[in-house]
């Protein structure tokens, strides 16, 4: 049953995305150029990666709002190290934020498990703690002027094309990373025992406990996974902007939550899929891009985004109500 609802959400989203694309194309043909699409995909890779982490937490019945602080701490430590020691290897730079993300995620998991307080409270507290301490220690200083290899890596493309004006464009490496993570997340959730346990915990935690699952191990996996992706996304964000500002990411927690929920993840746990979340991020990205291309005043963006989220949530709740009534009727 859950599979069917999830699948229908995705079919729904694909349809909406197609209609949206056609409308945007008719309003401004520039929308459908590969150059524009590639650009949108590149700019949203940070959001896309962390949204996949949030999805896994949501499926388990938890929630994490501290990932923005985790990504910031991870990328900041990386920035300090690679500029101070002039690290030439991008691979080495890439390895720095990941363990930091995982460690902070493990701290979240430990507190969620031991205190049995709702994860939203634990992660709000940790958002304050991680970010507050980073701001105190860093004094809010920006980091820029990365070593050359780090700068060149940001321009890496998997597929390079040349536009009519003779400018290179193509599918960014970060977009590929994002989609790769989506596939890996799907494989984990669908085929690995731990993935099935995540669904089980979110579907019915009491049943999962009585079935003898080690709840702490599942929670540890879930919060470390979003920690890992936050670290990775912190790296991507630093690459995309070629600058690290401690206050650039914090404050975007709810954007990511909105993307995950639009993609069919449930705040009650047990439902949602990586494909849906990728589509959710794309939907938000296309709407924003379309508004920019139509030169709609920036003030209207939020009105429209808010309206879409409320509408999507209302339709999905309405659908569930119908479903519930139908089941009762049988």
């Amino acid at each position, binding site marked *: 049953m859950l599979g069917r609802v999830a699948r229908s959400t995705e079919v729904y989203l694909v349809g909406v995305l197609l209609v949206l694309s056609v409308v945007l194309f008719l309003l401004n043909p520039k929308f459908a150029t590969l150059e524009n699409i590639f650009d949108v995909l590149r700019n949203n890779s940070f959001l896309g990666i962390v949204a996949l982490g949030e999805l896994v937490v949501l499926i388990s019945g938890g929630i994490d709002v501290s990932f923005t602080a985790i990504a910031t701490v991870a990328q900041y430590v990386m920035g300090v190290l690679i500029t101070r020691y002039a690290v030439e290897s991008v691979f080495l730079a890439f390895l720095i934020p990941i363990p930091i993300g995982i460690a902070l995620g493990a701290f979240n998991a430990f507190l969620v498990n031991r*205190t049995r307080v709702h994860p939203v409270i634990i992660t709000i507290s940790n958002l304050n703690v991680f970010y507050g301490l980073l701001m105190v220690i860093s004094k809010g200083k920006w980091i820029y002027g990365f070593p050359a290899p780090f700068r060149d890596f940001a321009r890496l493309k998997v597929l390079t094309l040349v536009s009519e004006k003779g400018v290179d464009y193509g599918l960014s490496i970060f977009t590929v990373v994002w989609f790769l993570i989506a596939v890996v997340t799907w494989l984990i959730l669908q085929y690995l025992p731990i993935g099935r346990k995540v669904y089980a915990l979110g579907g019915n935690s009491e049943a999962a406990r009585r079935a003898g699952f080690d709840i702490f191990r599942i929670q540890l996996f879930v919060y470390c996974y979003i920690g890992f992706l936050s670290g990775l996304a912190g790296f991507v964000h630093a690459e995309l902007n070629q600058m690290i500002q401690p206050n650039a990411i914090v404050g975007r927690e*709810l954007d990511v939550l909105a993307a995950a929920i639009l993609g069919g993840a449930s705040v009650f746990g047990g439902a949602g899929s990586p494909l849906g979340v990728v589509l959710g991020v794309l939907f938000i990205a296309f709407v924003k891009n379309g508004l920019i291309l139509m030169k709609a*005043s920036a*003030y209207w963006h939020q*009105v429209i985004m808010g*309206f879409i*989220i409320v509408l999507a949530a*209302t339709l999905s709740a309405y659908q569930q109500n119908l479903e519930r009534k139908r089941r009762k009727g049988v």
Partner: protein
Amino acid sequence: MKRPRGRRETQSLVLAAVVVFLLVLLGVLTRGRLLAPDSLQSIAFQLPLLGILTLAQMTPMLTGGIDLSIIATANLCGVVAAIAMTRGNVPPLGAMVFGLAMALSFGVFKGLLIAWVSVPAIIATLGFMIFIRGVSLVLTKGYVIAGFPGSFLFLGNGTLFGIPMPFVVFFLCAVFLFVLLARTRFGTYVYLLGSNPVATLFAGVNNGLVLFVTYLLSSFLAGVAGLVMIARFNAAQADYGEYYLLLTVLACVLGGVDPAGGFGRIPGVVVSVAVLQVVATGFNLLGLSSHLASALWGLILLGVIAINRMIGGVET
């Protein structure tokens, strides 16, 4: 019923101990400046804003929900009142009514969706937060609206018998909510609904209506906070005070409100708001970073939770 209440009481005791400890510590560190009349006066001016917003957050949390749109609602109310006063030359009282009416009308939609379409509160209010902030942005075009009549500024900066007006407003809101929650049938329903919505439904309570009124109430209190805020700053903007949002949730939980619903009382929440403000003011006096204060807020909450776990032991 008895065991949870006992636990809540230990939580209040722990919190009270934390307050006393912090007051003494910060008092000593600031060499008594924290408790000097002008510091207390400044606390009394600053505390009410967070206080009223926390009260707005509290009722939804008692029902097991949450309202992420309170800051956006406060700003919208402020912006509408500001526009009415500066561009429409509406007298302050009329402008306040306009602002509150605007806040309430969004509250009606929000309440309808949560109460009767059963949209999860966290998603519905997330959407409304973005939507309402957007409306304020459209109204202000991102600019600050400033320069209100003196009679209106009294609400934010005046004193009544030596007590700062914002504090008077906060006190009235707290008393109003206290009476509503502790002394009326509606209040009892709120607590019961938060503990077990199926039981209240079978007991013949109109769950939808209780939820609807809850979110109306939260919009109204957020609107009041918005009026106090613009009177205090003598300016209105679409995105003032957004960092208060997660802080209100933190203040509620610190004050003993159970995020799963059903438990939490006004006195605890008022004390917890005071703790947060004392920490902020004390740090300010010591010349320490406000970010250190926010890290400490998080640590205090985690600490109180941990201590409760140790005392509460077997529970849950």
